[in-house]
Protein backbone atom coordinates (compact mmCIF):
# COMPACT_ATOMS: atom_id res chain seq x y z
CA UNK A 1 0.00 0.00 0.00
CA UNK A 2 1.77 3.12 -1.15
CA UNK A 3 -0.51 6.02 -0.27
CA UNK A 4 -3.74 5.85 1.66
CA UNK A 5 -6.64 8.11 0.80
CA UNK A 6 -6.02 10.31 3.80
CA UNK A 7 -2.41 10.87 2.80
CA UNK A 8 -3.01 11.86 -0.78
CA UNK A 9 -2.57 15.59 -1.21
CA UNK A 10 -2.28 18.15 -3.94
CA UNK A 11 0.91 19.88 -5.06
CA UNK A 12 -0.50 23.33 -4.34
CA UNK A 13 -1.26 22.46 -0.76
CA UNK A 14 2.25 21.15 -0.20
CA UNK A 15 3.63 24.41 -1.52
CA UNK A 16 1.31 26.42 0.66
CA UNK A 17 2.07 24.53 3.87
CA UNK A 18 5.80 24.44 3.22
CA UNK A 19 6.00 28.18 2.66
CA UNK A 20 3.82 28.74 5.72
CA UNK A 21 6.22 26.66 7.81
CA UNK A 22 9.23 28.48 6.38
CA UNK A 23 7.56 31.78 7.24
CA UNK A 24 6.95 30.52 10.77
CA UNK A 25 10.60 29.47 11.13
CA UNK A 26 11.58 32.94 10.01
CA UNK A 27 9.26 34.61 12.53
CA UNK A 28 10.34 32.34 15.37
CA UNK A 29 14.09 32.35 14.85
CA UNK A 30 14.67 35.58 12.95
CA UNK A 31 14.71 37.97 15.92
CA UNK A 32 17.25 35.77 17.71
CA UNK A 33 19.62 35.53 14.77
CA UNK A 34 19.28 39.25 14.11
CA UNK A 35 20.12 40.17 17.72
CA UNK A 36 22.95 37.65 17.97
CA UNK A 37 24.52 39.05 14.82
CA UNK A 38 23.88 42.65 15.86
CA UNK A 39 25.38 42.17 19.31
CA UNK A 40 28.83 42.13 17.67
CA UNK A 41 28.30 45.55 16.09
CA UNK A 42 28.51 49.07 17.47
CA UNK A 43 25.30 50.81 18.47
CA UNK A 44 24.98 53.08 15.37
CA UNK A 45 25.06 49.94 13.24
CA UNK A 46 22.63 47.79 15.22
CA UNK A 47 20.25 50.73 15.65
CA UNK A 48 20.86 52.20 12.24
CA UNK A 49 18.68 55.12 11.24
CA UNK A 50 20.09 55.42 7.73
CA UNK A 51 20.27 51.91 6.37
CA UNK A 52 19.33 48.64 8.01
CA UNK A 53 21.91 46.72 6.00
CA UNK A 54 24.54 48.50 8.09
CA UNK A 55 23.70 46.11 10.89
CA UNK A 56 24.52 43.20 8.60
CA UNK A 57 27.75 44.46 7.09
CA UNK A 58 28.86 46.56 10.06
CA UNK A 59 29.88 49.64 8.07
CA UNK A 60 30.29 51.90 11.09
CA UNK A 61 31.73 49.08 13.16
CA UNK A 62 34.48 48.78 10.59
CA UNK A 63 35.06 52.54 10.64
CA UNK A 64 35.17 52.63 14.42
CA UNK A 65 37.08 49.50 15.34
CA UNK A 66 38.75 48.39 12.12
CA UNK A 67 36.92 45.08 11.98
CA UNK A 68 33.37 44.15 11.04
CA UNK A 69 32.87 42.49 14.40
CA UNK A 70 33.50 43.90 17.82
CA UNK A 71 33.18 42.35 21.23
CA UNK A 72 32.97 45.74 22.92
CA UNK A 73 29.43 45.07 24.12
CA UNK A 74 30.42 41.81 25.77
CA UNK A 75 33.53 43.38 27.23
CA UNK A 76 31.42 46.18 28.69
CA UNK A 77 28.76 43.91 30.12
CA UNK A 78 30.94 41.13 31.52
CA UNK A 79 34.01 43.06 32.63
CA UNK A 80 32.99 46.66 33.16
CA UNK A 81 29.51 46.01 34.54
CA UNK A 82 30.59 42.74 36.23
CA UNK A 83 27.85 40.66 34.69
CA UNK A 84 29.82 37.55 35.70
CA UNK A 85 28.77 38.12 39.30
CA UNK A 86 25.15 37.93 38.27
CA UNK A 87 25.71 34.82 36.23
CA UNK A 88 27.29 33.12 39.26
CA UNK A 89 24.30 34.16 41.36
CA UNK A 90 21.97 32.75 38.73
CA UNK A 91 23.93 29.49 38.66
CA UNK A 92 23.65 29.14 42.46
CA UNK A 93 19.96 29.98 42.58
CA UNK A 94 19.07 27.72 39.66
CA UNK A 95 21.09 24.74 40.88
CA UNK A 96 19.67 24.70 44.39
CA UNK A 97 16.14 25.49 43.25
CA UNK A 98 16.14 22.55 40.84
CA UNK A 99 17.66 20.09 43.30
CA UNK A 100 15.41 21.01 46.20
CA UNK A 101 12.21 21.23 44.20
CA UNK A 102 12.84 17.85 42.60
CA UNK A 103 13.49 16.25 45.99
CA UNK A 104 10.31 17.62 47.53
CA UNK A 105 8.39 17.09 44.31
CA UNK A 106 9.26 13.42 43.85
CA UNK A 107 8.18 12.59 47.41
CA UNK A 108 4.95 14.54 47.09
CA UNK A 109 4.21 13.51 43.52
CA UNK A 110 4.71 9.84 44.40
CA UNK A 111 2.34 10.12 47.33
CA UNK A 112 -0.30 11.84 45.21
CA UNK A 113 -0.01 9.22 42.48
CA UNK A 114 -0.39 6.30 44.89
CA UNK A 115 -3.09 7.60 47.19
CA UNK A 116 -6.56 6.79 45.98
CA UNK A 117 -8.27 8.99 48.53
CA UNK A 118 -10.34 12.03 47.73
CA UNK A 119 -7.99 14.43 49.50
CA UNK A 120 -5.22 13.66 47.00
CA UNK A 121 -7.48 15.01 44.28
CA UNK A 122 -8.21 18.10 46.33
CA UNK A 123 -4.52 18.69 46.96
CA UNK A 124 -3.92 18.61 43.22
CA UNK A 125 -6.74 21.11 42.70
CA UNK A 126 -5.24 23.31 45.40
CA UNK A 127 -1.89 23.10 43.64
CA UNK A 128 -3.61 24.21 40.42
CA UNK A 129 -5.00 27.26 42.21
CA UNK A 130 -1.55 27.99 43.63
CA UNK A 131 -0.09 27.61 40.16
CA UNK A 132 -2.41 30.34 38.92
CA UNK A 133 -1.34 32.92 41.50
CA UNK A 134 0.57 35.74 39.82
CA UNK A 135 4.06 35.75 41.32
CA UNK A 136 3.90 39.47 41.88
CA UNK A 137 0.99 39.18 44.31
CA UNK A 138 2.94 36.67 46.41
CA UNK A 139 6.08 38.78 46.36
CA UNK A 140 4.24 41.75 47.81
CA UNK A 141 3.26 39.51 50.70
CA UNK A 142 6.85 38.40 51.37
CA UNK A 143 8.49 41.76 51.42
CA UNK A 144 7.35 43.15 54.76
CA UNK A 145 7.90 39.96 56.82
CA UNK A 146 11.28 39.40 55.16
CA UNK A 147 12.36 42.93 56.05
CA UNK A 148 11.24 42.34 59.64
CA UNK A 149 13.09 39.05 59.99
CA UNK A 150 16.10 40.50 58.23
CA UNK A 151 16.28 37.78 55.59
CA UNK A 152 15.57 40.04 52.63
CA UNK A 153 18.13 40.28 49.84
CA UNK A 154 19.81 36.90 50.33
CA UNK A 155 20.18 34.20 47.72
CA UNK A 156 19.00 31.52 50.16
CA UNK A 157 15.67 33.28 50.71
CA UNK A 158 15.12 33.53 46.99
CA UNK A 159 15.93 29.86 46.53
CA UNK A 160 13.36 28.79 49.11
CA UNK A 161 10.72 31.05 47.62
CA UNK A 162 11.41 29.75 44.10
CA UNK A 163 11.22 26.16 45.34
CA UNK A 164 7.83 26.84 46.90
CA UNK A 165 6.49 28.60 43.82
CA UNK A 166 7.79 25.71 41.72
CA UNK A 167 6.06 23.06 43.81
CA UNK A 168 2.54 23.13 42.30
CA UNK A 169 3.89 22.57 38.81
CA UNK A 170 6.47 20.00 39.91
CA UNK A 171 3.84 18.05 41.84
CA UNK A 172 1.48 17.93 38.86
CA UNK A 173 4.12 16.83 36.45
CA UNK A 174 5.77 14.18 38.63
CA UNK A 175 2.35 12.95 39.74
CA UNK A 176 1.48 12.19 36.11
CA UNK A 177 4.85 10.49 35.55
CA UNK A 178 4.43 8.29 38.62
CA UNK A 179 0.95 7.29 37.44
CA UNK A 180 2.70 5.72 34.45
CA UNK A 181 4.90 3.54 36.62
CA UNK A 182 2.87 0.37 37.31
CA UNK A 183 1.52 0.16 40.84
CA UNK A 184 2.45 -3.53 40.98
CA UNK A 185 6.14 -2.72 41.12
CA UNK A 186 6.23 -1.04 44.51
CA UNK A 187 3.31 -3.05 45.84
CA UNK A 188 5.04 -6.35 45.18
CA UNK A 189 8.11 -4.98 46.92
CA UNK A 190 5.94 -4.21 49.92
CA UNK A 191 4.47 -7.68 49.86
CA UNK A 192 8.04 -8.90 50.06
CA UNK A 193 8.43 -6.95 53.30
CA UNK A 194 9.63 -3.52 52.29
CA UNK A 195 8.20 -0.48 53.98
CA UNK A 196 6.63 2.17 51.74
CA UNK A 197 9.76 4.25 51.90
CA UNK A 198 12.05 1.30 51.13
CA UNK A 199 9.87 0.41 48.16
CA UNK A 200 10.15 3.99 46.97
CA UNK A 201 13.89 4.02 47.56
CA UNK A 202 14.79 0.71 45.92
CA UNK A 203 12.09 0.16 43.32
CA UNK A 204 10.75 3.51 42.21
CA UNK A 205 13.85 5.71 42.30
CA UNK A 206 15.79 3.58 39.78
CA UNK A 207 13.01 3.84 37.18
CA UNK A 208 11.83 7.40 37.70
CA UNK A 209 14.73 9.30 36.09
CA UNK A 210 13.19 10.14 32.70
CA UNK A 211 10.30 11.87 34.44
CA UNK A 212 12.56 13.59 36.94
CA UNK A 213 14.87 14.91 34.22
CA UNK A 214 11.96 16.32 32.23
CA UNK A 215 10.47 17.96 35.32
CA UNK A 216 13.92 19.24 36.23
CA UNK A 217 14.18 20.98 32.87
CA UNK A 218 11.01 22.91 33.56
CA UNK A 219 12.10 23.77 37.10
CA UNK A 220 15.33 25.02 35.57
CA UNK A 221 13.41 27.22 33.15
CA UNK A 222 11.21 28.64 35.88
CA UNK A 223 14.16 29.51 38.09
CA UNK A 224 16.32 30.77 35.24
CA UNK A 225 13.63 32.90 33.63
CA UNK A 226 12.24 34.32 36.84
CA UNK A 227 12.11 38.07 36.98
CA UNK A 228 9.45 39.04 39.53
CA UNK A 229 10.98 37.26 42.51
CA UNK A 230 14.62 38.06 41.89
CA UNK A 231 13.91 41.69 41.09
CA UNK A 232 12.04 42.33 44.33
CA UNK A 233 13.66 39.94 46.79
CA UNK A 234 17.35 40.35 45.97
CA UNK A 235 19.59 43.22 46.98
CA UNK A 236 21.52 44.80 44.14
CA UNK A 237 24.79 43.01 44.96
CA UNK A 238 23.05 39.63 44.95
CA UNK A 239 21.06 40.16 41.76
CA UNK A 240 20.62 37.35 39.26
CA UNK A 241 20.98 37.85 35.52
CA UNK A 242 17.45 38.76 34.50
CA UNK A 243 16.86 41.54 37.07
CA UNK A 244 20.34 42.79 36.27
CA UNK A 245 19.49 43.11 32.57
CA UNK A 246 16.43 45.10 33.60
CA UNK A 247 18.51 47.45 35.72
CA UNK A 248 20.97 47.79 32.79
CA UNK A 249 18.08 49.30 30.86
CA UNK A 250 17.79 52.06 33.42
CA UNK A 251 21.49 52.86 33.54
CA UNK A 252 22.32 52.53 29.84
CA UNK A 253 19.69 55.08 28.94
CA UNK A 254 21.92 57.64 30.63
CA UNK A 255 25.29 56.42 29.42
CA UNK A 256 24.13 55.29 25.98
CA UNK A 257 25.62 51.84 26.25
CA UNK A 258 22.66 49.97 24.89
CA UNK A 259 25.04 47.41 23.41
CA UNK A 260 25.96 46.30 26.95
CA UNK A 261 22.35 45.32 27.49
CA UNK A 262 22.19 43.65 24.07
CA UNK A 263 25.32 41.63 24.85
CA UNK A 264 24.02 40.68 28.29
CA UNK A 265 20.69 39.58 26.82
CA UNK A 266 22.40 37.44 24.19
CA UNK A 267 24.65 35.94 26.88
CA UNK A 268 21.59 34.98 28.90
CA UNK A 269 20.22 33.19 25.82
CA UNK A 270 23.22 30.90 25.37
CA UNK A 271 22.39 28.37 28.13
CA UNK A 272 18.81 28.17 26.88
CA UNK A 273 20.01 27.46 23.37
CA UNK A 274 22.08 24.53 24.54
CA UNK A 275 19.22 23.35 26.71
CA UNK A 276 17.01 22.98 23.63
CA UNK A 277 19.86 21.48 21.63
CA UNK A 278 20.37 18.65 24.08
CA UNK A 279 16.93 18.21 25.60
CA UNK A 280 14.50 18.97 22.78
CA UNK A 281 12.84 15.57 23.07
CA UNK A 282 12.36 15.84 26.85
CA UNK A 283 10.93 19.36 26.63
CA UNK A 284 8.42 18.29 24.01
CA UNK A 285 7.42 15.20 25.96
CA UNK A 286 7.10 17.27 29.12
CA UNK A 287 4.84 19.81 27.46
CA UNK A 288 2.57 17.13 26.18
CA UNK A 289 2.62 14.93 29.28
CA UNK A 290 0.25 17.18 31.16
CA UNK A 291 -1.92 17.80 28.14
CA UNK A 292 -2.53 14.46 26.54
CA UNK A 293 -3.33 12.73 29.78
CA UNK A 294 -5.53 15.59 30.88
Amino acid at each position, binding site marked *: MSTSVADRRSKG*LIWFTTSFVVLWIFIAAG*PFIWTLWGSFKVQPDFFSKTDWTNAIYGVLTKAETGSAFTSAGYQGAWVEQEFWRNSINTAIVVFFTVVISLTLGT*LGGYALARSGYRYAFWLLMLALVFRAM*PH*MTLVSGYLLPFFEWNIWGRLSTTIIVLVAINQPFT*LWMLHSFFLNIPKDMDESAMVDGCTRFQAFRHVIIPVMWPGVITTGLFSFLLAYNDFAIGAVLLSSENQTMVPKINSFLGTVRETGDVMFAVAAAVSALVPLFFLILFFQRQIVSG*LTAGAVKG
Partner: protein
Amino acid sequence: MKHRTFFWFILPSLAAMILFIALPTVSVAIQSLFVEHEQVMVEVENCGPFKCETVLQVDTEATAVLQEEAPLGRFNGLRTYANRKHLAFEQVGVAWDETETFGAFFSELLNLPFYKALIFTLTYTFVVTPLVVVFGLGVALAVNRVPSLLKGPTIFVSLLPMIVTPLVGALIIFWMVDADGIIGATLQRIFNDPNLSLKASTPLTWIMLIVYGIWSSTPFSFIVFYAGLQTVPKETLEAAKIDGATRWQAVRFVVVPYMMPLVVFITLMQLMDNFRMLEPILAFQASAKATSLSYIIYNDLRGGDIPQFGSAGASSIMTIIGVAILLTPVLIRTWRDFNRKRA
Protein backbone atom coordinates in the same frame (compact mmCIF):
# COMPACT_ATOMS: atom_id res chain seq x y z
CA MET B 1 -1.43 4.31 50.66
CA LYS B 2 -1.93 4.76 54.38
CA HIS B 3 -2.88 8.24 55.58
CA ARG B 4 0.18 8.41 57.79
CA THR B 5 2.67 7.53 55.05
CA PHE B 6 0.93 9.87 52.67
CA PHE B 7 1.23 12.66 55.18
CA TRP B 8 5.00 12.21 55.63
CA PHE B 9 5.61 11.98 51.91
CA ILE B 10 3.65 15.10 51.10
CA LEU B 11 4.68 17.13 54.16
CA PRO B 12 7.79 18.96 52.85
CA SER B 13 6.11 19.95 49.63
CA LEU B 14 2.87 20.96 51.31
CA ALA B 15 4.70 22.92 54.00
CA ALA B 16 6.60 24.88 51.37
CA MET B 17 3.39 25.71 49.53
CA ILE B 18 1.51 26.73 52.67
CA LEU B 19 4.37 28.85 54.00
CA PHE B 20 5.22 30.63 50.78
CA ILE B 21 2.01 30.64 48.77
CA ALA B 22 -0.93 30.42 51.17
CA LEU B 23 0.41 32.52 54.05
CA PRO B 24 1.67 35.38 51.86
CA THR B 25 -1.88 35.70 50.57
CA VAL B 26 -3.01 36.26 54.14
CA SER B 27 -0.12 38.64 54.74
CA VAL B 28 -1.07 40.61 51.64
CA ALA B 29 -4.67 40.84 52.83
CA ILE B 30 -3.57 42.22 56.21
CA GLN B 31 -1.14 44.65 54.59
CA SER B 32 -3.84 46.05 52.36
CA LEU B 33 -5.74 47.27 55.43
CA PHE B 34 -2.89 49.50 56.56
CA VAL B 35 -1.15 52.57 55.18
CA GLU B 36 2.28 53.97 55.80
CA HIS B 37 2.82 56.21 58.81
CA GLU B 38 2.65 59.89 58.31
CA GLN B 39 5.96 61.51 58.93
CA VAL B 40 6.22 63.08 62.35
CA MET B 41 6.64 66.82 62.04
CA VAL B 42 8.21 69.05 64.64
CA GLU B 43 8.36 72.80 64.87
CA VAL B 44 11.93 73.99 64.95
CA GLU B 45 12.95 77.51 65.66
CA ASN B 46 15.35 78.59 62.99
CA CYS B 47 17.36 81.65 64.00
CA GLY B 48 19.15 83.57 61.33
CA PRO B 49 21.29 86.63 61.83
CA PHE B 50 18.28 88.97 61.71
CA LYS B 51 15.24 87.17 63.02
CA CYS B 52 13.97 83.86 64.26
CA GLU B 53 11.28 81.88 62.46
CA THR B 54 9.60 78.61 63.20
CA VAL B 55 9.57 75.98 60.46
CA LEU B 56 8.14 72.51 60.23
CA GLN B 57 10.65 69.71 59.86
CA VAL B 58 10.44 65.97 59.55
CA ASP B 59 11.48 64.35 62.81
CA THR B 60 13.36 61.39 61.36
CA GLU B 61 14.01 59.85 64.75
CA ALA B 62 10.41 59.90 65.87
CA THR B 63 9.31 58.58 62.47
CA ALA B 64 11.77 55.71 62.75
CA VAL B 65 10.53 54.89 66.26
CA LEU B 66 6.97 54.86 65.03
CA GLN B 67 7.98 52.62 62.13
CA GLU B 68 9.73 50.30 64.58
CA GLU B 69 6.70 50.04 66.85
CA ALA B 70 4.19 49.33 64.12
CA PRO B 71 5.92 48.22 60.92
CA LEU B 72 2.59 47.72 59.18
CA GLY B 73 1.67 51.37 59.48
CA ARG B 74 -1.65 52.90 60.45
CA PHE B 75 -4.87 50.99 60.24
CA ASN B 76 -6.81 52.26 57.30
CA GLY B 77 -9.62 49.76 56.84
CA LEU B 78 -10.85 49.40 53.29
CA ARG B 79 -10.03 52.98 52.37
CA THR B 80 -6.99 51.96 50.32
CA TYR B 81 -9.29 49.93 48.10
CA ALA B 82 -11.54 52.92 47.52
CA ASN B 83 -8.88 55.55 46.86
CA ARG B 84 -7.94 57.03 43.52
CA LYS B 85 -5.14 54.54 42.88
CA HIS B 86 -7.48 51.57 43.17
CA LEU B 87 -11.23 51.30 42.73
CA ALA B 88 -11.62 55.11 42.78
CA PHE B 89 -15.36 55.11 43.47
CA GLU B 90 -15.47 58.87 43.74
CA GLN B 91 -13.70 59.53 40.45
CA VAL B 92 -15.68 56.88 38.62
CA GLY B 93 -18.90 58.44 39.92
CA VAL B 94 -17.81 61.87 38.75
CA ALA B 95 -16.78 60.52 35.37
CA TRP B 96 -20.12 58.72 35.03
CA ASP B 97 -22.06 61.89 35.77
CA GLU B 98 -20.02 64.19 33.61
CA THR B 99 -19.50 62.18 30.46
CA GLU B 100 -22.20 61.87 27.85
CA THR B 101 -21.16 58.87 25.80
CA PHE B 102 -19.89 55.52 26.90
CA GLY B 103 -16.68 56.08 24.93
CA ALA B 104 -15.91 59.26 26.84
CA PHE B 105 -16.55 57.48 30.13
CA PHE B 106 -14.26 54.69 29.03
CA SER B 107 -11.40 57.05 28.22
CA GLU B 108 -11.90 58.71 31.62
CA LEU B 109 -11.54 55.25 33.18
CA LEU B 110 -8.26 54.73 31.32
CA ASN B 111 -6.83 57.67 33.25
CA LEU B 112 -7.29 55.87 36.55
CA PRO B 113 -4.29 53.63 37.32
CA PHE B 114 -6.14 50.54 38.48
CA TYR B 115 -8.71 50.53 35.69
CA LYS B 116 -6.01 51.23 33.13
CA ALA B 117 -4.10 48.16 34.32
CA LEU B 118 -7.22 46.02 34.63
CA ILE B 119 -8.52 46.91 31.18
CA PHE B 120 -5.20 46.24 29.51
CA THR B 121 -4.63 42.98 31.39
CA LEU B 122 -8.07 41.69 30.41
CA THR B 123 -7.69 42.82 26.79
CA TYR B 124 -4.27 41.19 26.57
CA THR B 125 -5.46 37.96 28.16
CA PHE B 126 -8.60 37.60 26.08
CA VAL B 127 -7.04 38.61 22.78
CA VAL B 128 -3.79 36.68 23.07
CA THR B 129 -5.27 33.44 24.44
CA PRO B 130 -7.69 32.61 21.57
CA LEU B 131 -5.25 33.77 18.90
CA VAL B 132 -2.52 31.58 20.37
CA VAL B 133 -4.86 28.58 20.21
CA VAL B 134 -5.78 29.30 16.57
CA PHE B 135 -2.25 30.05 15.35
CA GLY B 136 -0.81 27.10 17.26
CA LEU B 137 -3.29 24.75 15.60
CA GLY B 138 -2.53 26.30 12.20
CA VAL B 139 1.22 25.87 12.57
CA ALA B 140 0.75 22.32 13.89
CA LEU B 141 -1.45 21.34 10.91
CA ALA B 142 1.07 22.85 8.51
CA VAL B 143 4.12 21.26 10.12
CA ASN B 144 2.32 17.93 10.16
CA ARG B 145 2.17 18.03 6.34
CA VAL B 146 5.67 19.19 5.45
CA PRO B 147 8.42 16.72 4.55
CA SER B 148 9.82 15.12 7.69
CA LEU B 149 13.21 16.65 6.94
CA LEU B 150 11.80 20.04 7.94
CA LYS B 151 9.97 18.85 11.05
CA GLY B 152 12.92 18.53 13.42
CA PRO B 153 14.41 21.97 12.74
CA THR B 154 10.94 23.55 12.91
CA ILE B 155 10.34 22.17 16.37
CA PHE B 156 13.83 23.24 17.41
CA VAL B 157 13.40 26.89 16.43
CA SER B 158 9.80 26.94 17.67
CA LEU B 159 10.98 26.16 21.17
CA LEU B 160 13.14 29.31 21.19
CA PRO B 161 10.45 32.01 21.64
CA MET B 162 8.69 29.84 24.18
CA ILE B 163 11.47 29.05 26.60
CA VAL B 164 13.35 32.31 26.25
CA THR B 165 13.34 34.47 29.38
CA PRO B 166 10.27 36.72 28.93
CA LEU B 167 12.24 39.87 29.67
CA VAL B 168 14.97 38.96 27.19
CA GLY B 169 12.50 37.86 24.52
CA ALA B 170 10.55 41.09 24.88
CA LEU B 171 13.76 43.13 24.69
CA ILE B 172 14.84 41.39 21.51
CA ILE B 173 11.54 42.29 19.88
CA PHE B 174 11.61 45.79 21.35
CA TRP B 175 15.06 46.50 19.96
CA MET B 176 13.73 45.60 16.52
CA VAL B 177 10.54 47.65 16.62
CA ASP B 178 12.01 50.65 18.44
CA ALA B 179 12.36 53.81 16.35
CA ASP B 180 15.98 52.97 15.43
CA GLY B 181 15.51 49.22 15.13
CA ILE B 182 15.13 47.41 11.84
CA ILE B 183 11.33 47.17 11.84
CA GLY B 184 10.76 50.59 13.41
CA ALA B 185 13.07 52.37 10.99
CA THR B 186 11.57 50.54 8.02
CA LEU B 187 8.07 51.53 9.06
CA GLN B 188 9.21 55.14 9.31
CA ARG B 189 10.50 54.93 5.78
CA ILE B 190 7.37 53.26 4.44
CA PHE B 191 5.07 55.87 5.97
CA ASN B 192 7.59 58.60 5.31
CA ASP B 193 7.23 59.90 8.85
CA PRO B 194 10.52 60.26 10.74
CA ASN B 195 8.68 60.77 14.02
CA LEU B 196 6.61 57.61 13.80
CA SER B 197 7.17 55.63 16.97
CA LEU B 198 5.23 52.59 18.06
CA LYS B 199 5.81 53.64 21.66
CA ALA B 200 4.12 57.01 21.26
CA SER B 201 0.59 55.87 20.54
CA THR B 202 -1.64 53.87 22.84
CA PRO B 203 -3.24 51.60 20.21
CA LEU B 204 0.14 50.81 18.61
CA THR B 205 1.66 50.03 22.00
CA TRP B 206 -1.20 47.69 22.79
CA ILE B 207 -0.88 45.98 19.41
CA MET B 208 2.88 45.66 19.87
CA LEU B 209 2.47 44.00 23.27
CA ILE B 210 -0.23 41.68 21.96
CA VAL B 211 1.89 40.68 18.97
CA TYR B 212 4.74 39.93 21.33
CA GLY B 213 2.39 37.82 23.45
CA ILE B 214 1.29 35.81 20.43
CA TRP B 215 4.86 35.36 19.23
CA SER B 216 6.04 34.05 22.58
CA SER B 217 3.11 31.73 23.31
CA THR B 218 2.21 30.24 19.93
CA PRO B 219 5.07 27.69 20.14
CA PHE B 220 3.58 26.23 23.30
CA SER B 221 0.21 25.60 21.72
CA PHE B 222 1.87 24.45 18.49
CA ILE B 223 3.90 21.78 20.29
CA VAL B 224 0.92 20.53 22.28
CA PHE B 225 -1.30 20.38 19.18
CA TYR B 226 1.43 18.77 17.13
CA ALA B 227 1.79 15.98 19.67
CA GLY B 228 -1.98 15.66 19.75
CA LEU B 229 -2.17 15.36 15.96
CA GLN B 230 0.05 12.30 16.08
CA THR B 231 -2.62 10.52 18.10
CA VAL B 232 -5.56 11.25 15.78
CA PRO B 233 -6.61 7.82 14.50
CA LYS B 234 -5.82 7.47 10.78
CA GLU B 235 -8.84 5.24 10.24
CA THR B 236 -11.33 7.92 11.24
CA LEU B 237 -9.72 10.45 8.91
CA GLU B 238 -9.71 7.94 6.09
CA ALA B 239 -13.34 7.03 6.70
CA ALA B 240 -14.25 10.72 6.53
CA LYS B 241 -12.42 11.07 3.22
CA ILE B 242 -14.10 8.01 1.77
CA ASP B 243 -17.46 9.43 2.80
CA GLY B 244 -16.61 12.43 0.66
CA ALA B 245 -15.40 14.94 3.20
CA THR B 246 -13.18 17.67 1.80
CA ARG B 247 -9.86 18.37 3.46
CA TRP B 248 -11.36 21.32 5.32
CA GLN B 249 -14.32 19.26 6.51
CA ALA B 250 -12.00 16.53 7.72
CA VAL B 251 -10.11 19.07 9.81
CA ARG B 252 -13.26 20.75 11.04
CA PHE B 253 -15.25 17.66 11.98
CA VAL B 254 -12.60 15.07 12.84
CA VAL B 255 -9.39 16.77 13.91
CA VAL B 256 -10.78 19.74 15.83
CA PRO B 257 -13.20 17.73 18.00
CA TYR B 258 -10.34 15.36 18.72
CA MET B 259 -8.23 18.34 19.85
CA MET B 260 -10.86 19.76 22.21
CA PRO B 261 -9.25 18.53 25.47
CA LEU B 262 -5.99 20.09 24.34
CA VAL B 263 -7.75 23.37 23.58
CA VAL B 264 -9.07 23.41 27.14
CA PHE B 265 -5.61 22.67 28.52
CA ILE B 266 -3.88 25.35 26.45
CA THR B 267 -6.57 27.91 27.23
CA LEU B 268 -6.23 27.26 30.94
CA MET B 269 -2.43 27.57 30.89
CA GLN B 270 -2.56 30.68 28.73
CA LEU B 271 -5.17 32.39 30.88
CA MET B 272 -3.00 31.88 33.94
CA ASP B 273 0.20 33.04 32.25
CA ASN B 274 -1.20 35.99 30.32
CA PHE B 275 -3.04 37.33 33.34
CA ARG B 276 0.24 37.74 35.19
CA MET B 277 2.12 39.44 32.34
CA LEU B 278 4.72 41.91 33.59
CA GLU B 279 8.08 41.75 31.81
CA PRO B 280 6.99 42.92 28.32
CA ILE B 281 5.74 46.20 29.80
CA LEU B 282 9.13 46.84 31.37
CA ALA B 283 11.06 45.77 28.29
CA PHE B 284 8.92 47.83 25.89
CA GLN B 285 8.97 50.80 28.30
CA ALA B 286 5.24 50.86 27.72
CA SER B 287 4.05 51.88 31.18
CA ALA B 288 2.82 55.27 29.99
CA LYS B 289 0.42 53.66 27.51
CA ALA B 290 -0.25 50.24 28.94
CA THR B 291 0.15 48.73 32.39
CA SER B 292 -0.85 45.38 33.82
CA LEU B 293 -2.03 44.35 37.27
CA SER B 294 1.35 42.78 38.03
CA TYR B 295 3.04 45.94 36.83
CA ILE B 296 1.20 48.26 39.21
CA ILE B 297 2.10 45.99 42.13
CA TYR B 298 5.74 45.93 41.00
CA ASN B 299 5.69 49.69 40.63
CA ASP B 300 4.35 50.17 44.16
CA LEU B 301 7.09 47.97 45.56
CA ARG B 302 10.07 49.04 43.45
CA GLY B 303 9.04 52.24 41.69
CA GLY B 304 9.72 54.77 44.44
CA ASP B 305 12.15 55.05 47.32
CA ILE B 306 9.73 53.69 49.89
CA PRO B 307 7.74 50.54 49.06
CA GLN B 308 4.00 51.16 49.35
CA PHE B 309 2.87 47.98 51.00
CA GLY B 310 -0.71 49.04 51.57
CA SER B 311 -1.29 49.99 47.98
CA ALA B 312 0.53 46.93 46.62
CA GLY B 313 -1.48 44.74 49.01
CA ALA B 314 -4.81 46.11 47.83
CA SER B 315 -3.87 45.65 44.16
CA SER B 316 -2.67 42.11 44.92
CA ILE B 317 -5.89 41.13 46.65
CA MET B 318 -7.93 42.38 43.72
CA THR B 319 -5.64 40.52 41.32
CA ILE B 320 -6.12 37.33 43.31
CA ILE B 321 -9.88 37.83 43.14
CA GLY B 322 -9.49 38.18 39.38
CA VAL B 323 -7.58 34.90 39.20
CA ALA B 324 -10.26 33.20 41.29
CA ILE B 325 -12.96 34.40 38.88
CA LEU B 326 -10.92 33.16 35.90
CA LEU B 327 -10.41 29.73 37.46
CA THR B 328 -13.94 29.12 38.73
CA PRO B 329 -15.30 27.61 35.46
CA VAL B 330 -12.31 25.26 35.27
CA LEU B 331 -12.67 24.14 38.87
CA ILE B 332 -16.40 23.54 38.49
CA ARG B 333 -15.78 21.53 35.34
CA THR B 334 -13.06 19.43 36.97
CA TRP B 335 -15.28 18.83 39.98
CA ARG B 336 -18.07 17.54 37.70
CA ASP B 337 -15.65 15.30 35.79
CA PHE B 338 -14.27 13.96 39.03
CA ASN B 339 -17.73 13.11 40.35
CA ARG B 340 -18.73 11.51 37.08
CA LYS B 341 -15.64 9.30 37.17
CA ARG B 342 -16.37 8.22 40.73
CA ALA B 343 -20.03 7.52 40.07
